[in-house]
């Protein structure tokens, strides 16, 4: 079937709820109204009010209760309505979900998913536009996934729900409905921890993920050189090997992400390239990122996240040395 990213989320939820009675979907406005982006549309009708639950407005309890449900053997898929509302629940991710396996030597685990739309560019209010994957990827024991295509969205979400560890599933809402592609019916997985090479090339490696992939792919089409584009898909654990092998081939690299530059995931990608492929580098690795500022309110948010000319400029810098 042809599906957008948000339709692929919905399809994955329908697929896994039908396959596994232990899957429970909950969050604010997910049941009766089907989610503010309609990601959970028709789940209530199909699977009933015991398994599709509108919760009180309580991010701490949503994430904390997901952890408890998972420890008890359920497969919770919690929704945080916008990424800007996750911070109150940061404590539950850090203190409980991410370390219950470690602190009980594997006796208790938290196989759970927290889904949330992230990123700027949908003309929403303040606190509706953040890309804080760097902060969440800094939590040991938590997996962080950010798909960029409908096909990967469904396969990664199915793999995330079945994963034995907690997964923060960051959905790129700016491109929720920006394109359709063929998404297989029924069951399939895209494995966590594996990057995808979106475009093969010899001259420069461009690494990105999630909301920035379309702009990145658009930028390299304008390039007078042959770029290889790596979509990380999983931010943590990060597929170092795919990145490093590509850089060893091309000798040049650019990392593109939407969140703030300082202490962002891009810095870690650069460090891994330095660790494993420093002697292959022909030029310093470039970073194209959001600024070290809050995301501007909607009148200027379009300046904040990288656009193709900005990405292209950085790639040309990497090639110029």
């Amino acid at each position, binding site marked *: 079937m042809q599906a957008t990213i948000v339709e692929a989320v919905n399809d994955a939820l329908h697929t896994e709820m039908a396959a596994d009675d232990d899957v429970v979907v909950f969050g604010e406005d997910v049941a009766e109204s089907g989610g503010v982006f309609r990601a959970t549309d028709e789940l209530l009708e199909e699977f009933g009010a015991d398994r599709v639950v509108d919760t009180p407005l309580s991010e701490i309890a949503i994430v904390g209760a997901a952890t408890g449900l998972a420890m008890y053997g359920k497969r919770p898929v919690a929704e945080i309505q916008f990424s800007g*509302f996750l911070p109150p629940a940061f404590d539950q991710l850090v203190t409980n979900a991410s370390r219950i396996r470690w602190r009980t030597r594997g006796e208790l685990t938290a196989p759970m998913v927290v889904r949330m739309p992230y990123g700027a560019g949908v003309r929403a209010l303040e606190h509706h536009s953040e890309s804080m994957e760097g902060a969440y990827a800094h939590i040991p024991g938590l997996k962080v996934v950010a798909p960029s295509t409908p096909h990967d969205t469904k396969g990664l979400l199915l793999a995330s729900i079945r994963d034995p560890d907690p997964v923060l599933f960051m959905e790129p809402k700016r491109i929720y409905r920006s394109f359709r592609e063929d998404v297989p019916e029924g069951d399939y997985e895209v494995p966590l921890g594996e990057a995808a090479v979106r475009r093969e090339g010899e001259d420069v490696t461009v690494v990105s993920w999630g909301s920035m992939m379309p702009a990145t792919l658009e930028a390299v089409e304008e390039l007078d050189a042959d770029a290889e584009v790596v979509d990380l898909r999983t931010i943590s654990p990060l597929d170092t090997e795919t990145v490093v092998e590509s850089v060893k081939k091309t000798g040049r690299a650019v990392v593109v992400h939407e969140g703030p530059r300082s202490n962002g995931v891009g810095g870690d990608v650069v460090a891994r390239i330095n660790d494993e492929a420093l002697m292959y580098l022909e030029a310093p690795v470039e970073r194209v990122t959001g600024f070290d500022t809050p995301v501007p309110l909607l*009148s200027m948010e379009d300046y904040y996240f990288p656009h193709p000319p900005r990405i292209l400029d950085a790639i040309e810098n990497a090639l110029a040395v």
Partner: protein
Amino acid sequence: MTENAPTDHPANAAVSAGDPRFLTQDDLTVDTHQVVGPDGSYDADDVPDLDAEQFRDLYRWMLTDRVFSRRMVSIQRRGELGTFGSTRGQEASIIGSAYTLQPEDWLYVGRAWTPMFMRGVPMEDMILFWRGIEEGQQSFAEHNSQIAISIGSHLPLVAGLAWGMDLSGDDAVATAYLGDGATSTGAAHEAINFAGALGVPALFYCQNNQYAISLAADEQTGANTLAQKALAYGMDAIRVDGQDVLAVYEAVSEARERVREGEPVFVESVTYRLDAHTTSDDPTRYRSDEEVDAWEQHDPLERYREFLKSEGLWEDVDHDAIVDEIEAEFDAALEAANEFAEREIVEIFAHVYEEMPPELQRQYEEFVDLLDRRPEMCDFIEQRPKG
């Protein structure tokens, strides 16, 4: 007046249904304070002590609230705003409460915009806010006010503001408006308990408008009322009919006086959000037309008009002329907002810190340089100073 009658001992079988060893919610009787009934009737002894001009003033502000929401929804539909949350149906709840506040008070609101105008914020700046222009918030701050977007996040902050007032010995109160949904956040529980424990001049004004986006208030909590939640934190509470502007005014006035004395108060105002959560929301997905129609019959302006007529004050109110004046004020505000100067790139980078760190300065300069070298960036950036 509301009578909160908590059992002081669980063995008080007179008020405790069932097993007397257990405290139950039914131990508590929470009335809803009302001055003017739905049919317009009232007891003259219950009417708050306001003069004729103040009574008319309340009506004018309620009309301002209604007209502002209508005009904002209208310009949003024309693409001139990002989104907007209408307050229609909540005018008595919003105006009756805000009318009690003094300029030295601080005000952190959820769904309540006209209180800003009552404090002197130009209407133009509220339009700028909904167009995603930070200077709107700057204007609110100049009037000791802010809008909280992340639900419940402002409540601990208001406890801190109140604490500051207490430490400084200032005669003022810190007021938080919140919704039914916000009472479920962890921040609400911590803030209300904190303010109650410290005894600081914080006023928590909860507009229970029956919905947190799609979730009905009776699904938000197992508690019979929101007002009773305050008691567990050692704070007095009052529940009031939010469609009755005089009841709201009287309850919040009295609450404010108690708060000034260092006794924080929680007010639950029972009201109804007649319009969508925001212009992005479709309420037909989660509530019936019949329910909305029933609440339309509890129009707070209509009820207050009946009161003004009974008092002989209505004949001095030229409703149509007031509407025309508010419309003209909105037109002028919209024109001024439309002429707000195009913003500079530095606005993105300014005010993150008092002094811009070198790395941020570098990011700013690189970006300005890029925009200069790559004019095609304009094809991707749709600057939207007008929302």
